[in-house]
């Protein structure tokens, strides 16, 4: 029944359209056809290009460009400066403030497109591919930008043709050198402070912020009241002359924030929001209360391990920790005159790790300190090893060691092992000249603690 009704209705509608059609068509003859614009599309495009060209060259100190490669901004943002004349563009950026000159043009493509169409070391830093495996797409940076228009504040809005990212050219009121030096100062200042992370209370919500300095990302995590779980938001940032700024605003607990002023002490970075209605948003870096600075570790220690799995027959060896690569590695000496071990220092955690590592050669074989679960598995996986924790007592300074949880082996000991040139196991390395002080073997069973003696 319904079907039949529908059919009748459809037919009626069809008929109505058919009869109405001539009426619509006749109308077109009655009216003058006037163009919406006075000029053709091509002429308007040429005029737009002309006016953009004039705008670009009309900046005595040039422009700054906030540059965001890759469609998800996963490498963070960088600051460029560009000065245009009729033909050339002088391009510098925060990693290389020395300008490089190349040609540019404004072409009509997807609208007017600003293109840097001869090679420029600085401009093409994020778009130059370097190989077939990892680098064939480079960092997916742009060198062709669709010009979206000139803003009220005189800035020019651009859209990266490859990434789709929105970026802005802003007139510089100072020299490129001064601008980039200010940027560099902020990034150096921020990156020099050791941080386990940042914390904030935003609109009454406790927010934890993890970070990636290399790729300039902040990861906000906060409890989600409704679902009893937590929400994560990623913000890609670039440095500014006074702090840092996100690619797009982040909203948490009703507060929306994007731009921050940075102030730093030697131990704390504080980011204070400068956006209207969010100036009470403050992100402050923190360190764990058992945090130790790199230099705190340097000194002489009594190192404790055992001759037996059951922690019987303790062995105490006097060892030293000395400087390796600042803020990255420390050298442990004293186990045997042939043996120097490299410990990795984590700036974020303030802790040390002792992982599997090659420590010497025996003919063509390589001698390894292998992480070992005493009486069980040993491994030359360089992620395997143990991590230190501090007893928070400056006067009775003790580091205790446990498995670093990077593998499933539950490492508690170390053993010297040999690998051949192609990386295959050649068995335990036994050589009395390499025996650990206080023992007759090349093993550290039940590696337990290091007590600082001076």
């Amino acid at each position, binding site marked *: 029944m319904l079907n039949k009704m529908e059919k009748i209705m459809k037919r009626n509608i069809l008929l109505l359209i*058919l009869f109405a*059609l*001539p009426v619509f*068509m*006749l109308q*077109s*003859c009655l009216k*003058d*056809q006037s163009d919406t614009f006075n*000029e*053709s*599309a*091509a*002429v308007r*495009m*040429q005029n737009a*290009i*002309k006016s953009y060209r004039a705008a670009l060259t009309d900046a005595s100190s040039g422009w700054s460009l906030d540059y965001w490669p890759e469609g998800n901004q996963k490498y963070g943002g960088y600051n460029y400066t560009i000065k245009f004349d*009729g*033909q050339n563009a002088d391009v510098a950026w925060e990693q290389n403030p020395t300008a490089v000159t*190349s*040609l540019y*043009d*404004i*072409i*009509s*493509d997807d609208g007017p497109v600003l*293109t*840097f*169409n*001869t*090679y420029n070391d600085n401009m*093409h830093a994020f*778009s*130059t*591919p370097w*190989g*077939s*495996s990892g*680098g*064939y*797409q*480079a960092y*997916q940076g742009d*060198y*062709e930008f669709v010009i979206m228009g000139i803003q009220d504040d005189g800035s020019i809005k651009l859209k990266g*043709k490859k990434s789709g990212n929105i970026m802005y050219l802003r007139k510089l009121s100072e020299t490129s050198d001064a601008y980039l030096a200010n940027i560099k100062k902020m990034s150096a200042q921020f990156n020099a402070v050791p941080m386990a992370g940042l914390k904030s209370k935003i609109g009454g919500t406790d927010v934890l912020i993890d970070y990636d300095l290399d790729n300039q990302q902040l990861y906000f995590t906060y409890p989600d009241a409704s679902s009893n779980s937590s929400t994560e938001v990623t913000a890609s940032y670039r440095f500014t002359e006074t702090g840092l700024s996100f690619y797009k605003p982040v909203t948490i607990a009703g507060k929306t924030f994007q731009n921050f002023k940075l102030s730093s002490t030697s131990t704390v970075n504080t980011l204070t929001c400068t956006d209207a209605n969010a100036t009470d948003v403050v992100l402050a870096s923190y360190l764990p209360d058992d945090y130790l600075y790199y230099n705190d570790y340097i000194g002489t220690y009594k190192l404790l391990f055992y001759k037996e799995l059951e922690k019987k027959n303790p062995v105490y060896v006097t060892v030293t920790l000395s400087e390796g690569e600042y803020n990255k590695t420390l050298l442990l000496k004293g186990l045997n005159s042939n043996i120097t071990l490299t410990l990795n220092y984590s700036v974020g955690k303030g802790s040390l790790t002792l992982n599997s590592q090659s420590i010497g050669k025996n003919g063509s074989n390589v001698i390894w300190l292998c992480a070992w679960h005493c009486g069980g598995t040993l491994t030359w996986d360089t992620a395997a090893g143990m991590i230190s924790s501090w007893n928070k007592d400056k006067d009775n300074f003790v580091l205790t060691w446990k498995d670093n949880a990077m593998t499933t082996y539950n490492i508690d000991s170390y053993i010297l092992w040999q690998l051949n040139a192609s990386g295959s196991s050649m068995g335990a390395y036994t050589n009395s000249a390499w025996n650990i002080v206080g023992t007759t073997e090349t093993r550290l069973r039940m590696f337990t603690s290091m007590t600082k003696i001076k």
Partner: protein
Amino acid sequence: MLTAIAFLGVSCSSDDLDSESIITVNEVQKNQFDKWLNQNYVIPYNIAFKYRMEDIEADMNYTLVPAQYELSVAMAHMVKYLCLESYDEIAGINFTRKYFPKLIHLVGSPEYRNNGTVVLGTAEGGKKITLFNINNLGNIITSAASLNSQYFKTIHHEFTHILNQTKSYPTEFQEISGADYVSDSWSTAPYETEYAYRGFVSDYAQDSAGEDFAETLSIFVTHSATQWANLLASAVEYTTDSNGKTVVSRDGRPNIIAKFEIVYNYMKDSFGIDLYKLRDAVQRRQADVVSGKLDLEDVSIDNAK
């Protein structure tokens, strides 16, 4: 009824043609190099030499960057001197005008593919040659072998394809190595190393008869007589038999020579080009380039022309 409606649809007003063309030329200020290109490429050959990267001229699926200005100038000089004028010298400028691709596009980076291969040059429909990796030119400019393998062998190779599209080569050519073509496997073992024993001048020549033809021609003209003789000598494989005697186990020479003869006659009969003379001209000019005789920076214009 539908017909009636259709008639009604005919427009009753007439539009005048707009006096302004919708095709407008970008008002790029011409620099000295642009003027030089006009005088050395456009006027004599009607060839557009595009050194400013245009994404629409490139394959958008790859990540590419523009060529550096100074290196583009050097490349323009070299393409003219090594390729265009070599053909002018042997076949006359009208030959070059008629057949040489009308668009040369420079790209600064190589075209990296994610399967581990790199594209050095492409030709499309006889109209356009794209040369990649121009930004590496400074590193290899004193080595004829590198210049050839990176750029000029590619140009001769692609140009050969264009000539083949104009006049096809004799079918006897593909019968010589008929069963030995391996298509995409040319870059894998054992083909990547044993091409000469198998009767080919290069690994890529094993792809197909068309590529073989272009490789044979382009490698011949970019190799000196001695290098060509060495290439032929390397096509003989020796092994030791059970009596300890050295014997020839494979010999690729007859096939290479037979194919070269067809290539030679094709160029001679179809276009009046003696490949030996072309080779000598290319070799002489190549020596001028690597010895620094050719000025690769001068973009001044002879106004008397």
